């Protein structure tokens, strides 16, 4: 029990105290907004295919490490490709994946000594970029400033929260046994090439106690 408390405190302090370096979405009343129109509007602004260069800060236990992630996302085909480099342009790993599998196309030997890092990264990319629209059968709940959708997912359920004057997706959270397992928060949406892209993304994995802070650096397509 004591170990559990210490573990909980450790995760809480490590994750809970991490600063979010992006502006929160300005909330506006959404009480009179039709939830289905929120989803439809969000879907319309969602880019189907894009390639983006991000900086990614991996944060764990007050320690931080920076990488550059070049990500190619194809939402229509549910496929992605990603290459991660260090800031000097050295390729650390390269992987591709779809809904069912993640393939490591290249990884530095030094990285593989610490476990299957590319697969972990691939799973986080799926969490961030895929399944960002709730299903038509999702359970809706309206707050004064937010509209939330909840639907079963795997062993738990997924919750989507939309807010702001543009009614963007601001949070996507996964729960198991009513415990928050991980959450992706999206910040500072901007219209680029006719579609809406969050300029900042924060993924917090409460289960393992780490945070990824993603900043868009360049949008290629």
């Amino acid at each position, binding site marked *: 029990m004591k170990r559990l408390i210490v573990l909980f405190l450790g995760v809480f302090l490590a994750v809970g105290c991490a600063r979010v370096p992006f502006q929160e979405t300005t909330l506006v009343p959404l009480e009179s907004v039709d939830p289905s129109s929120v989803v439809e509007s969000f879907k319309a602004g969602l880019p189907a295919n894009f390639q983006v260069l991000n900086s990614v*800060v991996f944060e764990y236990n007050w320690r931080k490490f920076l990488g550059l992630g070049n990500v190619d996302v194809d939402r229509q085909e549910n496929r992605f490709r990603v290459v991660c480099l260090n800031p000097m342009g050295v390729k650390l790993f390269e992987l591709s994946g779809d809904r069912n599998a993640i393939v490591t*196309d290249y990884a530095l030997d030094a990285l593989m000594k*610490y476990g299957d890092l590319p697969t972990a990264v691939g799973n986080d990319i799926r969490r961030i970029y895929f399944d960002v629209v709730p299903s038509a059968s999702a359970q809706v709940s309206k707050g004064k400033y937010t509209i939330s959708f909840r639907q079963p997912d795997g062993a738990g359920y997924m919750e989507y929260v939309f807010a702001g004057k543009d009614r963007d997706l601001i949070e996507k959270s996964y729960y198991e046994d009513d415990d928050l397992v991980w959450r992706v928060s999206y910040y500072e949406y901007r219209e680029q090439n006719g579609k809406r892209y969050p300029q900042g993304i924060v993924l917090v994995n409460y289960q393992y106690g780490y945070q990824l802070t993603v900043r868009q650096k360049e949008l290629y397509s």
Partner: protein
Amino acid sequence: MIMYWRIGMRVVFSMILCVIVGAGLAFGAETSKGGTPGQADLRELLNTIGKRVSEFKTLKTDFTQEKKMAMFKQKLVLKGRIYLQKPNKIAWHVDSPLRYSVLITDKLIRQWDEDTNQVQEISLTKNPVFQNVLGQLTVWFSGEYGSLLDGNTVRLVKRAPLVIEFTPRENNPAKKVIKNITLTFRDDQKYLQQIRIQELSGDVTTIHFMNTLLNAPLNSSSFEVKGRV
């Protein structure tokens, strides 16, 4: 995840090992005394160029690094500056698309980036492996090209400007990764104008050196990783 952080420090080392010493690997390895006709001439040419290039105490250069990756349509472009002070001090500053600096000396590696805004430092005093890495790094940038024929097939591509291509031989460990490396020298042949590394994966990295100044005065801020201009 613990692994995310634990790889962090490894990555600092890997970057050196992979890009620059990766090139060093291609140039390092075993000596082949035989050589094909013309190889002796090339050795003499490289020695001459090496002597010319190595005649400096400090170096200051801007660079643009373009990385064309086989899996992606768009190439990644990094821009920055390199400062080198012989015998063993080098600072690599990236200005775009993000700000990042790393200082490598015979005693430590110190790095900073704008996103984490943290300075991380690793001691090299008890790490002979990475002291050796620094040695290779310095040699590479200092232009001591005497051993470039070792482990590689060398081809003179062009005389003006001078372009030399190095292809790792079968017994060279770099052969597993690198298809060839091409060096392009400035018109005065006093320093490199471009390095092009073509990998077997199809990736191509090209580093262009611009505004290169030899023996330019360098102050301590050139080697600061945080708070730099």
